Structure formats: C-alpha cells, structure tokens
C-alpha cells in the first residue's frame, strides 16, 4: 500500500518550497491563467519550472490548478499552456472543465488530470464517469462523510483526494454564484467575494425573523481534520489536501509540519493518543487564525460547524523570524526579521527537523553593522542571535510572549 500523500497549497515559489521542506509530498499552485486563485498567484511559468526541479530533486510532485469554470474568452491559449506544463514536467493538473481534461489528454498526455473539488463529486458513479475520461484522481466534495468515503472507496479504484484542513465553502463548490449576483465577481473564475460570510437579515414573507442587532449567517468554520488522519489512512485514500493558497509561509510551515508528524507517527506506531492530538491541535492553533470544525466528516453539519455572531478570526502566535543559517563555532543563528521582537522576548523555534524549542532572547546583533540592538524593528533585517542549540536554514521563530 502506497503511503498517503500530504498535499499543500502555495501562493508563490517561496511558500511552495517551504511547504515541501516542512513535509508536504506535493504542492499545488496556480498560474496566472486558468486558476481560481489567479489574484493570489505569483507563479510565472519559469517559477513553476523551478518548482518542478526543486520538487522532483526531492522525489516530490507539483500540481497546477486549472480550476476556473471558463467562459469562452478564458480558453484562449489553452493548448499552448497545457503543452508548456507538460514540457516543464508538471505532474498533474487539477481541473473542473471537461474541455480542459479532453484537451489535456490530446495535447499533453503526460499530464495527469485530477478532477477538482469544484465539480463537487459525491459518489462513485460520478467518479466512474471521470475515470472513463482518463482522469487519474478525483478530489472529493467537502460534503462527503468518512462513512461515504469508505463506501466510495469500495466502489472505485481511482485515486481519491480528501480535504483535511482549511477554508470551506458554505455551498457545494462550483455550484455557487452568490458572489456574481451580489458583487459581479465571478466565484467560479477567481472572484469569489465570500458573500456567504456576510451578514443578512432573514424574513418570512414580510415579517423580519432576525432580531435587532442580530443577523442571519451561513458562513462555515474552517476544516481541521487532524483527528481523522488515522481513519483516512486506513481507508487508503491517496492524498490529504490542505487548503489555502492565500495563506502565509508561517501558516503553511506550521500546518504542514503538524500533519506530516501525525501521518508519520501513525504509520510508525499505529495509533495516536488523545493527548498527542491535543498537542498537535495546540501547535496548529499557533498559526490558525480562524475557528475550525470537523466539517462534514462525521455527518451533516450542525450549528457547531457554522459561524454565528462572531468574527471568525483570532490572533495567532506571531511569526517573527526566518532562520538563514547557524554558526556552530560561535553558536549563533543568522535570522531574517519577519515581525517586531525585542531583547527579553520568549520565542519558540521550530522547523522541519527541529522540535519546538523555547528560548529567551538575550542578545540581538545587527548582521550588517555589528551593532547590538534592543529591538528588531525592520522587516527582512538580518541579525545574529546567540543560541545554545542548533537550528537550520528554513527553521522559523515565533513569539511566545
């Protein structure tokens, strides 16, 4: 049985590399065309090519999202785009257009086609249709329960990909044009205004149902399925997907690393205790700034999976530094500033191979001037911090208090 894939999002090349370094087996990225997150994408073809090289050197994969639901004008240059993706050795495209699937099979047969969750596939018979088209994987709708995944798995041999973390649509994905009507921004072409998270008044006929200072809300809490990872591994799904191409490098590093550890731990030991899960959840919450739930995995959503009367965001532990190097001889780290910190702050270091390690900063030295500083004020400022333990390039530092 192949080990389950951990698939992470990335909005730019730096994030993609971090996701891979922190434990993702594959990353999915959007180019400036054909992708729902076109606005967030910083991927030129050259970046995707560089990412493919970086990933393949590490036996990892790169998927490119072509998940808009196109209008006629959007399909210009489709063939040349697909040919280019094949030439630069992208492993697969993730798409929601049968036209894109069909063209890809014709002009770029080395590209695997994964059916996007935008198609909201909820059963094995619909999967069979896409399998006949030559698709190798289906990303299941986020509305599917664990029990249903098990039933689907029994009726298909195609690879299944399941979302485990990140934002949830209130509607079936790809079946909502609320944003189009409220803002003229096309939800299925990268313009979703998240109108489902806005405040509404509810009426029954002419009678107002919502009370004064209250609203009707339909927004969803984000998904956090870390406790279901053992079940999903046991069900032999192919890939576990984290959502969030708009998310920060720090978020990606934290979340990807946690899921990597859970997956590896389960394969190694065969079980994960509740206390261990609580520790992992606590770790994710250092970067997760939205309320989370189990989504549909246990069954139909209840009030516990919905957002009411609340702004969904809460502060996270601050990401304050990115490790560029460590000098073994002088026992000091070269750190690039990401957020304000000061001498005396308690910080925590973490990384792909570094256990969380707390430390009180006693000295900050400007890397360029050698001057000792009381505070690190400037973004991307490089500084040296004496550290009695070894850290490595790509580790991160966050503020504890």
């Amino acid at each position: 049985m192949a080990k389950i894939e951990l698939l992470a999002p990335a909005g730019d090349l730096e994030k993609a590399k971090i996701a891979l370094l922190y434990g993702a087996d594959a990353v999915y990225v959007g180019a400036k065309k054909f992708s729902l997150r076109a606005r967030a994408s910083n991927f030129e073809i050259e970046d995707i090519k560089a990412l493919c090289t970086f990933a393949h050197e590490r036996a990892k994969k790169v998927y490119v999202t072509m998940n808009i639901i196109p209008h006629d004008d959007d399909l210009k240059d489709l063939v040349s785009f697909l040919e280019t993706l094949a030439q630069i050795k992208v492993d697969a495209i993730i798409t929601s257009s049968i036209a894109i699937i069909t063209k890809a099979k014709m002009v770029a047969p080395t590209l695997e086609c994964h059916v996007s969750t935008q198609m909201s596939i909820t059963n094995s018979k619909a999967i069979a249709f896409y399998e006949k088209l030559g698709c190798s994987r289906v990303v299941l709708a986020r509305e599917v329960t664990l029990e249903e995944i098990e039933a689907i798995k029994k009726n298909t041999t195609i690879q299944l990909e399941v979302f485990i973390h990140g934002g949830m649509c209130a509607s079936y994905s790809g079946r909502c044009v609320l944003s189009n009507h409220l803002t003229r921004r096309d939800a299925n072409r990268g313009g979703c205004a998240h109108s489902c998270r806005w405040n509404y008044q509810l009426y029954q006929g002419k009678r107002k149902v919502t009370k004064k200072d209250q609203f009707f809300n339909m927004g969803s809490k984000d998904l956090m399925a870390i406790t279901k990872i053992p079940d999903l591994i046991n069900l032999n799904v192919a890939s576990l997907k984290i959502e969030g191409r708009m998310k920060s490098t720090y978020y990606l590093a934290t979340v990807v690393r946690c899921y990597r550890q859970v997956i590896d731990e389960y394969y190694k030991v065969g079980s994960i205790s509740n206390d261990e899960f609580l520790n992992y959840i606590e770790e994710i919450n250092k970067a997760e700034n939205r309320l989370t739930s189990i989504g549909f995995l246990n069954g139909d959503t209840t009030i516990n999976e919905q957002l009411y009367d609340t702004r969904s965001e809460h502060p996270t532990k601050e990401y304050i530094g990115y490790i560029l190097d460590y000098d073994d001889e002088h026992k000091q780290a070269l750190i690039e500033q990401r957020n304000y910190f000061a001498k005396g702050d308690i910080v925590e270091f973490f990384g792909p191979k570094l256990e969380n390690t707390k430390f009180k900063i006693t000295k900050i030295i400007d890397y360029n001037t050698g001057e000792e500083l009381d505070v690190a004020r400037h973004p991307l400022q490089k500084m040296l911090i004496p550290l009695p333990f070894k850290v490595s390039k790509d580790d991160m530092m966050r503020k504890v208090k």
Partner: protein
Amino acid sequence: MKYITEPVNKKQLAHFLGQTLITDILIGVENISSGPILKLSTAEINYYLTKTEDLKISLDLTRLFHEKELATLKKSLSEIDLTKIKFIFYTDFAILQIIDELGYKDKLKLVYDAYTYTTNALDVNIYNEFNTYVSVSNQISIEELKSLLAKLNHKAIIRGFGKAVIFYSKRKLLTNYFKYRTLKYNAKGKNYLLQEEYRNDLYHIYEDNFGTYIYEPHYYYLFLELDDLENVDYVILESVFLDARTYENIVLAYLKHDDNLLHSLHLDLYKGIMQEKSILLKDEVIDNGKN
C-alpha cells in the same frame, strides 16, 4: 423553438397535459428531486404518463447524489416507465451511469443541466457527446450566450424565464440557524427571504431534505432576444415561487410571443446578470478601480 414548462401543481399538470400547444412538461420525483418544484411519487408519474399519447413529460433530477442515496435513486428510476419519459435533466453523472445500468442508455434522452458548468462552447460541445442535449448556463451575459450558441455543433436548451438557483448547499442553513437562535422554524415555508446587510434585494432561501438553495432576487427573462439566438431547440420557463395563474399567463405570453402580456403581469423582471459580463478577477481590474 419549443418551451419546456414547469406546472406549479397537479391541477396545472393535468391541464397542461391536455393542451396541444404545450409540448413539454418538467416535473420532479418525490424524495429524489430537490427544490420547490412540483414533485410526484413514482406511481403518480406513471399515472400521468398514461394521460397523454405524446412524449411530453420530462424529469428534473438536477441535484447531487451522495453514495448512500444511489440505491434509492436507482430504485425510484426503475419504478418509472422511462420509455414514456421525454428527457431526464440531471447534474450528477451518477445519473448517466444508472441509466446505462438500467438498460436505457440509447433509449433515453438525457440533458446535462449544470448551470454553473456550461459556460463555454468547448465544454458544452463535449458534454453533449454524452447527452441528447446540454442546458447552457444562464449565468453568463447575453452576448456570451449568443457567441457560445453560435459555436455549438448541435442544438441546445436554454433557460428563458425564472429565478435561477445561485447557491446550492448541503447544509441545513435554516434549520441550524433557527436552532442556534432557539426560534421555531416552519420547515414547509417557501417564503423565507434574505436581505444582505447593505443591499436592498430580497433573495428567496429554501431548505429541503437535501440542503439549502438561494435564488436570484428577480425574474430573469429572455424574450425578444430569443429570435436572435442560434442553435436553440428548447427554452425552459421556470415556475419557482409563482402561483399557478401567473405562471400560466407567463407560458401563454411566450406561446403567443406577446411581450405586452408578460409585462402586464407586473413581475419583478430584469436582465441582471445577463446584461453585463461578470468579472474574472485579475489584478488589473482591481488596479483600474473597476471593481
């Protein structure tokens, strides 16, 4: 160009079946179809199928089916005399497989009707390879629709009148909301409306066993434009949230090609989303302040 009608109730269904001018009737199947449309049991459908010699009745199965529902879906379809059904409108490819399994693949006329996916000619042409017809999206501009239809290598079905579903969720959003507020929810209510905090439009919101649906705030309509559209065989006239008398007048207006009659009904008509292209959000759009 023919019109596909949606009778509001059984009385209107019986009436429409007897009208020679009405060639097509679309109904739902009880416990299978979703939304506030006329839904009949399989026995009732078989009964009405005997009431006309013509192939007139089509089934609306345009929702997503979960794995555990497939057996019920197949059983319900097997109970209906599908040889007398004109079209099956569907949005989930499970239907295609089930019809095949039931032995009707080459005998039944299937219509792929996924309004958010049929937005370009290339997709529509490929979807049509698996179906008799494809229903083209009503969520594109009229100009896009004209251009799309002109590029088709077959005839299509379009929506001519109605309130489109603009949000389709598996979540029981009304049930959950009323539970959260500890208010009493009238589960049979069809007249719940949403109004966004800073906007005036009212959107019907409807919940059934299969989820929650939100509808366009106004009735979109194509009328005079129909004459300019190529490759259209059928036009659907939707009836959601209309009473039987009003709907009959709407059907009459289309059959008589009487724009004045349509406007005399004082409905909240608009071209809305069809008048302007929606935005594919790109940085330059934001930078130009057009958004």
